[in-house]
């Protein structure tokens, strides 16, 4: 072990920790509970968050086979309301937000005028004239600022609701059963990517069937003062089903297995959605202008004529783990770069996502290796995701 390794290792989830202007870490409403549970905490985007409670592999496997409970209160909620809310979001974001029905949610992105991705978002339409935009913790301020700036001239209010919500997620095959024991809400009628207001364990909550794990699951937005009560009720209700508290470390391996992009790794301001293979989120057919339309139109044409690097999956033959930034090689030639890598608890092998030249992107392409600190380790190119749950 090196002198600095313990400090350096703490979390390589990628988004660089951005300490608040005062230099102090922010704490969620569940902070004391995490400490009582013996969590290993880490600085994540200026928040002191649970990395893991015990073994991250056990937590990962619990979500795949039973259920896991996450504190995601660091995520950034922004409420957009008013008669012009839909028009504002259609202008500010690349998706067709006016077309989202009340009670449903959509995965979308906010781009710069040059088409670069500022953040990826989930937008919930809570009512005809009310939306909740959920941004990544590391980008919450950037997204808020952009929405406020882009709201000029629209009959809509953009409200910073980051302090208004705690966010708990219950993920895994047992999660519907656990939640059903605590709510009268119609969970069977709640589709994937939908949300409805309800009561869970006596606590008013926005219940959303969303998540970032590749499993069925729910995200519960509640007032911070109700977070501890809800956490404890979920823990108790989930005990028999094998629910365990889970930290951000296993959240990262779960999303990686599910092939889901992470901002700062697969997405950045230097990539357009077309470069990231997510051009489908850009809805040119929607009415009116939107920020980035011109640049994205060009990016789409460019991608058509001269395909950019392709995001692929890589599975190791050996045991060494590729990390973000490592070169992907064939022969002596660099053909791409790792964006995320980790040992996959489900596959039992190291896996990675990487952007590679299109000529080497087909599943099964021979001769592909990852340069792991000077050693070229053989990797198999596979289609994403690595893991898809059985429905």
């Amino acid at each position, binding site marked *: *072990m*090196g002198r600095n*390794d313990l400090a350096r*290792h703490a979390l390589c989830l990628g988004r660089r920790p951005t300490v608040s202007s005062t230099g102090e870490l922010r704490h969620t409403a569940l902070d004391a509970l995490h400490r009582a549970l013996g969590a*290993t905490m880490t600085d994540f985007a200026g928040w002191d968050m649970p990395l893991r409670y015990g073994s991250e*592999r056990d937590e990962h496997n619990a979500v795949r086979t039973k259920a896991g409970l996450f504190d995601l209160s660091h995520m950034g909620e922004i409420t957009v309301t008013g008669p012009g809310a839909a028009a504002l979001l259609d202008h500010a974001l690349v998706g067709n937000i006016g077309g989202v029905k009340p009670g449903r949610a959509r995965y979308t992105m906010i781009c710069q005028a040059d088409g670069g991705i500022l953040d990826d978002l989930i937008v919930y339409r809570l009512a005809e004239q009310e939306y909740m935009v959920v941004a990544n913790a590391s980008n919450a301020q950037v997204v808020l600022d952009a929405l406020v700036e882009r709201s000029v001239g629209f009959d809509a209010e953009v409200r910073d609701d980051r302090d208004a919500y705690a966010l708990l997620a219950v993920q895994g095959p047992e999660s519907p059963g656990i939640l059903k024991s605590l709510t009268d809400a119609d969970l069977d009628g709640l589709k994937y990517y939908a949300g409805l207001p309800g009561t869970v364990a006596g606590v008013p909550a926005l219940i959303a069937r969303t998540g970032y794990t590749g499993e069925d699951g729910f995200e519960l937005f509640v007032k911070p003062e109700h977070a501890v009560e809800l956490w404890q009720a979920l823990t108790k209700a989930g005990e028999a089903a094998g629910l365990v508290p889970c930290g951000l470390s296993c959240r990262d391996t779960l999303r990686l297995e599910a092939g889901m992009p992470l901002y700062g790794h697969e997405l950045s301001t230097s990539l357009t959605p077309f470069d990231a293979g997510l051009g489908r989120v850009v809805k040119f057919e929607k009415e009116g202008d939107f920020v980035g339309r011109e640049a994205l139109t060009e990016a789409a044409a460019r991608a058509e004529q001269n395909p950019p690097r392709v995001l692929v999956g890589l599975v190791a033959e050996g*045991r*060494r*783990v590729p990390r973000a930034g490592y070169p992907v090689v064939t022969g002596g030639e660099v053909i791409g770069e790792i964006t995320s890598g980790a040992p996959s608890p489900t596959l039992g092998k190291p896996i990675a996502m990487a952007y590679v030249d299109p000529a080497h992107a087909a599943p099964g392409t021979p001769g592909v290796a990852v340069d792991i*600190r000077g050693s070229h380790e053989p990797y198999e190119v596979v289609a994403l995701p690595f893991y898809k749950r059985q429905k």
Partner: protein
Amino acid sequence: MSNPNELRYSKEHEWLSGAQDGVSTIGITEHAANALGDVVFVQLPEVGDAVSAGETCGELESTKSVSDLYSPVSGEVTEVNEDVVNDPSLVNSAPFEGGWLFKVRVTDEPGDLLSADEYTAFSAG
């Protein structure tokens, strides 16, 4: 966690056993193993390699990170723990026992190795 009294410790979070016969066993501490998280790959020096105190001699890879392994003493590697190569989780489950890493016939050791109590205080700070 408790650090065995009969061992000595480096500030790089290795432990080493006493060397009556001139051979020390080396591993990483429970504190270090906990901080790393699940260890998934270890690269150890080879038998016959010369290692130098304070210099890199291998790698420990966990779910989230990779860390260099340093030798706390100078000497020649006499044995490596093949069990831990085959099952790196031993570093987590038994850092002071089955998770030992390698043995060195010691020729020189630095003067700043810590006692269990000193290391406990150091790693708590």
